[in-house]
């Protein structure tokens, strides 16, 4: 049996099963957690297999490549799958620790699984319109989760998310239609082959720019990020962690995929534009983070700032920078999610995450402090933590290509990141006025902290074992940039419709 469909099918079936189950309860929780573990194990297996061997290809409905839809799991997709399932598992476990099933929202688990199915589909698909469908699943599930447990004020904050993403989806639909007109096909591999012979056609670049806008909205690059910073803080903590980790990174992944695998590599103006927008995103994101004074708000803005690093790596457009981007994505997803979780623990202990009213955490909860310090400094890019190596590789490529201004911007963004992390540290952890109560009696924090610590251990492992992770990232980058290899694998599966010359 071809395992390529399973990363999508497993969460989908889990969601349906849970939906039928109805009321929350312990068995339901065990089921979802078990499914999460299986999904993670599967994704890790896929990473191992795809890195050492050929990519997994599934021709859905047994239709040969350009006619039907294909799912392709190359190393890049497999890495993203592993990250999404890992983050989802952490988020689910954290959610279990946070609330007993008696007060759990019954729809949270099924919707999370639906969301996961959408995210995974976006990673696996090898078809432009199917990617649109994946985005639809992902976005509708994320709208639903965003408003699920919100109060009436929060719903209003979620509105920009809805509005901007609808605009994005509309543009995406237009772009998919135009791509079909231009290339006569929607299959990634087929587009890549057909586009490579018409690289001089200005229409390819025009389409590339339109796709840049579309996926820029999803990724949250400057000036398209308005939907993000105010909506994420209204989410429950575990979901905020999942969103922060995965959703914008789907945009980054698609940028990698579209500019690396699908469109010709000669679209220099689009790459340049990406790089400069990335520079602006870094700076504006971190400035926004400094302006906030509650942890979730700070972290939400930091997502943008770091998106800037990843997109800059895409814009620099060398195999090394792609590898740097993938490494950075790996680091970022884990660190950012765990920081949201850590912020949640702080919130649980201080009963607020407003920095003006927090304090005393370092005195009473040193373990939380250690975990926070590891992840915050990793975010700021201190060696030898995971955040440093990605940044390092990006700076190397930037200097190599002579993008001095952008390198300078990334260094400034790093130090400002450090500054805003110190703001959290000084206010929430070190500041210790006697009247700030730390609710250590609320024993949930121990379990919550354990989940965050688990993620921290993984991220420390990424930092210290950067060699292995970077090798994997390099393999993924090389394979993602190898359009002919991608097409060869896709077209090698012959089903109904027969073989087609690429």
């Amino acid at each position: 049996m071809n395992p390529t469909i399973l990363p999508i099918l497993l969460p989908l079936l889990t969601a349906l099963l849970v939906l039928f189950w109805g009321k929350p309860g312990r068995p339901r929780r065990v089921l979802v957690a078990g499914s999460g573990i299986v999904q993670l194990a599967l994704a890790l297996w896929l990473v191992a297999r795809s890195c050492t061997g050929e990519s997994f290809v599934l021709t859905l409905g047994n239709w040969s490549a350009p006619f039907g839809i294909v799912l392709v799991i190359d190393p890049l997709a497999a890495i993203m799958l592993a990250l999404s399932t890992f983050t989802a598992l952490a988020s689910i476990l954290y959610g279990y620790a946070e609330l007993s099933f008696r007060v759990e929202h019954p729809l949270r688990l099924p919707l999370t699984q639906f969301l996961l199915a959408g995210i995974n589909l976006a990673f696996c698909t090898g078809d432009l319109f199917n990617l649109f469908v994946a985005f639809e699943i992902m976005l509708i599930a994320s709208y639903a989760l965003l408003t699920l447990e919100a109060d009436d004020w929060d719903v209003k904050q979620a509105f920009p998310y809805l509005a901007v993403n609808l605009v994005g989806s509309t543009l995406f639909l237009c772009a998919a239609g135009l791509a079909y007109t231009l290339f006569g096909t929607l299959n990634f591999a087929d587009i890549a082959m057909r586009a490579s012979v018409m690289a001089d056609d200005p229409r390819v670049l025009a389409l590339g720019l339109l796709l840049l806008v579309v996926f820029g909205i999803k990724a949250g690059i400057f000036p398209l990020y308005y939907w993000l910073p105010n909506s994420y803080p209204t989410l429950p903590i575990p979901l905020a962690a999942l969103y922060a980790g995965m959703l914008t990174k789907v945009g980054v992944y698609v940028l990698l995929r579209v500019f690396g695998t699908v469109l010709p590599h000669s679209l220099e103006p689009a790459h340049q534009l990406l790089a400069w927008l990335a520079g602006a995103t870094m700076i504006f994101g971190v400035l926004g983070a400094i302006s906030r004074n509650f942890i979730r708000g700070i972290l939400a803005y930091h997502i943008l700032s770091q998106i800037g690093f990843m997109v800059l790596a895409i814009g620099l457009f060398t195999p090394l920078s792609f590898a740097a981007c993938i490494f950075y994505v790996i680091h970022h997803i884990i660190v950012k999610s765990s920081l949201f979780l850590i912020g949640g623990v702080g919130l649980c202990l201080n009963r607020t995450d407003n920095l003006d009213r927090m304090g005393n955490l370092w005195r009473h909860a040193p373990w939380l402090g250690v975990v926070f310090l590891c992840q915050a400094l990793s975010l700021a890019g201190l060696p030898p933590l995971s955040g440093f190596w990605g940044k390092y590789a990006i700076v190397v490529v930037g200097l190599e290509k002579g993008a001095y201004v952008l390198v300078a911007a990334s260094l400034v963004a790093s130090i400002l990141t450090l500054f805003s992390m110190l703001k959290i540290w000084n206010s929430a952890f070190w500041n210790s006025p006697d009247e700030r109560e730390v609710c250590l009696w609320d024993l949930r924090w121990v379990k919550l902290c354990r989940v965050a610590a688990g993620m921290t251990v993984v991220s420390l492992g990424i930092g210290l074992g950067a060699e292995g992770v970077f090798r994997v990232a390099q393999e993924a980058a090389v394979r993602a940039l190898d359009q002919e290899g991608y097409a060869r694998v896709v077209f090698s599966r012959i089903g109904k419709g027969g073989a087609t010359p690429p």
Partner: protein
Amino acid sequence: MESNGILLLVAVVLPLLGAPLVALAGRGLGRRVGWLAFAFPLISAGTLLSLAARIGLPGSEVIEWPWIPTFGIQFSFLLDGLSLFFALVVSGVGVLIFFYANFYLDDHYEHHGRFYCYLTLFMAAMLGTVLANNLMLLFVFWELTGLASFLLIGFLHHEEKSRIGARQALLITGFTGLLMLAGVIMVWLVTGTYDLAVLLGSGLPLAEHRGWLTAAMVLLLLGAFGKSAQFPLQFWLPNAMAAPTPVSAYLHSATMVKLGVFLCARIFPLFVENGLWAPLLTLVAFTTMLLGAVLALLANDLKAILAFSTVSQLGYLIGYYGLGPAHGVEYDYLHILNHVFYKGCLFMVAGIVIHAAGVQDIRQLGGLRRRMPWLAGVCLIAAATMAGVPGTTGFLSKETMLKEIFEAMNGHGALGIYATTCVVLTSLAKVAFSFRFFANVFLGEESEAVKKNFHAPPPAILAPPLILAGGALLLGLWTGPLDALMRGLAVEGLHQSAPHLALWHGPTTELFVSLAVMLLGLGVFVLGQRTAWRWAAIPRRLRFDEYFETGIEHFSKFTKWLTRFLRADKPVDYLPVIIAFTLCVVGGFMGYALWPSVRESAGAWTWDALAPHPVRSFVAALIALSVVGVLILRRWTTQLISLSVAGFLTTFYYVLYRAPDLALTQILIEVVTLFLILILLGRFPRSSELGEIIHRPSLARRRLNVVLSLGVGILMTTFILWFNAVPHPDRIGRFFTERTVELAEGRNAVNTILVDFRGFDTLGEITVLVIAMLGGLGLLMRYKRTPEEYQEGPMGPPGLGIKHSERREEP
């Protein structure tokens, strides 16, 4: 090699791994954990000594394990004279400091475990930095020292000045560290290696890559300047005094701040040929030296005097490398060792005094010689060393420095004169504040504060400063060991061969200058005593730290303003941004690409080219009309009717294109939508019920909106026309219509596409439907805020079970 490697690991990695254990042990052991931690510097110092013996100096050895070969980063250490000298200083002073801290940190402090954990971590990081052979490994440890010192400086974190001091230290050293990283990478891009031993062996291709390597050098030196608190970044160091005294002693005398000096020494052979090396180092370092000395003279806080004198001395040490002749310097070890002796000793003395008397303002101290005669003796020796009185290492240091500077005056011209002036003035100030330090603490009448608070320190605490002061005195008188040390640890490229120290060089210029400086310095001291140091206060203009903090405050305010300025809550605010961006990027390029052909064919264009189909055009016009209706009608109901009309007209459009499936779907969808609208009509809020006034946007804004909307419309139209002008000849759609019967066994190609060819899309879309339904159901139940709560804004995430009234916060 093998056993050397193991010894090295024991020296560096053991404390690194042991640090967390110390923190854990501290929970049970309390303050006794200090003795456990004391083992680490002892072990490190011991192993390093034996390593030094085994290598057979002045040779060198590289010990390497692979780490990240992809980036050329290895876990690689270079054992040579320079690194061993620094490592021995670090671990040796570490022994004294750990010992001292065990007495200093009594039961008034809490969290002993954490303290020793940081201290051990710090020592390990220092050892790693100085021993590293790989430049990136050096950087890794370099940043780790920054982190450890951050934790140490903020150890007393309930005090705001600790937090601020720690933050300043980390931000300054962190940022300059990043610059240094850029420099390191630039070196790598030229040479392809991070390996110091290789680089030192082969040198840099300075001639071919002059500009590039000069930039790299400046960046590296900026890193050194930040760490070693050079002008204008010197301000963080005095504020790092907020830490407990053993930390200050360790950070300032032996370690952290010496890293800049170390880096300068390490890269000296690589860059000294560069024309910018000497001027940059000399100007910055000697300016720092003079400024530090002046500030030390003006300061009144016991620890601040010492801190500023450290700043000054760091300038002295770094400037020394700047002036040093290209073929190598001579006496750098002497200067460093001298500073270690007196500064470590004085800090520990200051700590004992502060601990015993309970005050640290020098104006409130005095007369302690009767209560602590031994301490007074130690302090006298150390202060004399700082002042450069003959018979101490300070004297040797000053003599050799003056000698080299006079030599440099010939070589460097104006720079030499500047350096000489600075050194002379600094020495003068140094004499003054050294004597002040001793006299105002130990001589004179006993002050009120001392009488009230005094409690005697444990006698054993005296041992570490005594050892240091003894060293200063002993080596000052008996220069043989120093000579041997400098000869034994000399490093090729950095050092000239065979320095020779002597107490008496005969009546040289240096001696006379030295004498004059001593007299003048005493004069300043006497003047100060006469005027009771009333004029000693640091002017606001020189408070760089205040500038920095004000800058940070203004910066935070600026970001708040910026976020408010960019804030957009309403769709009419942020959607135009997105649309305008799309227009600029995509439309801009399209205009650029299409303009030539448009201009060419401008005259030849006619309506016939479009060949409008009469019926289709009519329906299209009707659709457009009803859409315009949606825009201009001002009531919900009429707008919705207009929208419905547009929808039904679209059905006709499909019919005209002979797409029965689409038409059927469209009409049914319209019916359902109509039902939905009719049902919900009663729930549509009138604007007044919404509790807010719907602003009618300004005229300019409406015009902008019109322009943007038209722009997007034109953009998409042009897109379609442009792309359809030459569509791809081979569309896969043809495959579907031609072979649906044969392959999918269905005659309705639309359906076979939906369920068979692209059935997976359909599966996805029905999933979307189900999710949408669940989302809709979720919206029907919610927590409702009271009007007061509604006014409050963001309130924290739901679900944690925290009382609603407790989870308010400001955005």
